[in-house]
C-alpha cells in the first residue's frame, strides 16, 4: 500500500468515485462513537486484568480459580445477550422485512459464537485446575457446548449462497428456534446431571461476593458488554457495506442486462 501525501478529507479517495459519479462509499467501519467505545473496552480489559489478577484476594472456597470467573461469567453473559439480540433481530426481520434487522441478527450471532468459544475455553481451564481434567459433564459447560453447536449451524446456513431475502428468512427462523431451545436445553441438562452434584462454575455473579471481588465481577460484566457492543457495531457495518457493494455490482449487472436487450433490437 502506498502512502498518499494528499490530505484525505474532504476529497474522497479516487478509487471510490465511479465514473457515473456515485457518492463515495465510506472506507471504514469506525466512527467517533465506536472509537470511544473501543478505547473504553480496551482500557476496561486492562483494568479488569489488573483487578482480577492482582488487586482482588483469592476466594475463601474457590481459591485462585475465582480469577477465571471474572472473565468466564462476562463472556457467557455477553454471549446470551448476543443470542437474545439475534432472536429479537430475527423476529423483527420477519415482521418488518428490513435488511437492518437481518444483518444485526447475523452480526450479533457471530460475536455470540466467539464469546461462547471463549466461555468453553476458560471453563475448561477452570476444570483442569479444579477437577484435574479439562472436561467433566458439568451442566453449565455442557449446555454451553450444545448451544455453541446450535449457533454454528446458524452461521453455516448464512454462508450458503442464495438470494439475500431467502438467506434472511431462513436464518431468522433458525435464530428464533435456537433461542427457544436455550431454556429447554438448560432445564434438560440440569435434570440430567441432577443426581451428580459437583462443584460448578458459576453462571452468574455470586451474591456472596463482597468488596473488590464484587466490584471486579461487575467490572468484568460491563467491560465485556462494551466489547460486545463494539464488535457487533463493526461487524454490522462491515456486513452493511458488503451488501452495498453487492448492490453496486447488481446495478452494473442490471445495466449490462439492459444493454443486452438494446443490442438485440438494434440490428
Amino acid at each position, binding site marked *: 500500500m502506498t502512502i498518499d501525501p494528499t490530505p484525505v478529507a474532504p476529497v474522497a479517495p479516487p478509487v471510490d468515485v465511479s465514473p457515473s459519479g456515485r457518492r463515495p462509499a465510506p472506507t471504514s467501519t469506525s466512527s467517533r462513537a465506536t472509537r470511544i467505545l473501543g478505547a473504553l473496552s480496551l482500557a476496561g480489559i486492562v483494568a479488569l486484568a489488573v483487578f482480577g489478577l492482582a488487586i482482588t484476594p483469592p476466594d475463601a472456597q474457590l481459591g485462585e480459580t475465582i480469577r477465571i470467573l471474572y472473565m468466564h461469567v462476562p463472556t457467557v453473559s455477553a454471549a446470551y445477550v448476543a443470542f437474545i439480540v439475534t432472536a429479537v433481530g430475527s423476529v423483527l426481520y420477519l415482521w418488518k422485512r428490513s435488511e437492518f434487522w437481518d444483518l444485526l441478527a447475523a452480526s450479533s450471532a457471530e460475536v455470540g459464537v466467539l464469546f461462547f468459544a471463549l466461555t468453553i475455553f476458560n471453563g475448561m481451564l477452570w476444570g483442569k485446575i479444579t477437577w484435574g481434567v479439562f472436561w467433566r459433564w458439568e451442566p453449565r459447560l455442557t449446555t454451553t457446548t450444545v448451544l455453541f*453447536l446450535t449457533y454454528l449451524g446458524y452461521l*453455516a446456513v448464512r454462508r450458503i449462497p442464495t438470494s439475500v431475502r*431467502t438467506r434472511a*428468512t*431462513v436464518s431468522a427462523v*433458525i435464530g428464533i428456534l435456537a433461542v427457544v431451545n436455550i431454556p429447554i*436445553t438448560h432445564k434438560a*441438562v440440569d435434570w440430567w446431571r441432577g443426581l451428580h452434584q459437583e462443584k460448578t462454575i458459576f453462571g452468574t455473579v455470586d451474591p456472596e461476593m463482597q468488596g473488590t471481588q464484587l466490584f471486579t465481577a461487575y467490572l468484568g460484566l460491563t467491560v465485556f458488554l462494551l466489547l460486545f457492543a463494539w464488535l457487533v457495531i463493526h461487524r454490522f457495518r462491515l456486513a452493511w457495506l458488503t451488501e452495498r457493494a453487492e448492490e453496486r455490482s447488481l446495478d452494473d449487472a442490471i445495466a449490462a442486462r439492459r444493454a443486452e436487450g438494446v443490442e438485440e433490437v438494434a440490428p
Partner: protein
Amino acid sequence: MIRDVLLVARKDLRLEWRSRVGVGQVLPFALLCVLLFAFALDVDRGVLQEATSGLFWVVVLFATVLVVQRAFAIEADDGVLDALRLSGLAPSAVYLGKVVAITVELLALEVVLWLAVAVLYDTTLRGWGLLAATVVLATLGAAAAGATYGVVGLRLRGAETLLPLLLLPLLAPVLIGATSASDVALGRSAGPGWPWAAMLGIFSGVYLLLGSVLFRPLMEDP
C-alpha cells in the same frame, strides 16, 4: 384445516408406501446401528444392557434425520414445492401434515427397533405406560423440530448436508428426556419417569407451535 393436514399426511404416507424408502433403507440402517454398537461396546460386560435406552434413542435420532430428509426430498420432485406454494394450502397445514407423516413412519420404525433391541441386547421391555408415552411424545417432538428444518434444505440448495448439524443439537433435550424416561420405564434407574415425559410433551408442544407459525415464511417467501 384438519382436512388439509390429512390430505398432505396421506399423500406422504402413500408415497412412502410406494417407494418403501423407510422400510428399505432407513430401517435396515437403524438395525445396522444396533449391530455396530455391539461391535463398538463389549458384548460380554453388560454395557449394552446398561446403555440400551441411550443407544436406542441415538439410533432414532439418526433415523429422524434420514426420514426428515426423505420427507422433503419428495417435495423437491419436479417443482412440486412451487406447486404447493401456488395451491393455496395453508403452510401450517402442510407443516402439520408432514409432522403427522414423519411421526407415523418413525413410530413404525421404533416398534421394530424396540423388538430388535429387546432380542439383541437382552432387554426386557416393561413399564409399558411410561414407555409408550415416551415413545410417542419424543417422536412427535423430533418430527415437529425436524419438519421445520427439513424445509430449510428445500429452500437452500446445499443445505441438505447441514440438516444433522441444525437438527441434532436442537434435539439434545429430546435425547436426554427420552433416554432418562426409558431408563426408568425399563427399571434401569430409579426415580420419577413421568416428569421426563412431561418435558418431552412441552418440547413437542413448543416446536409444533413454532413450526406452524414459522413454516409460512420458510415455504412461502418468494
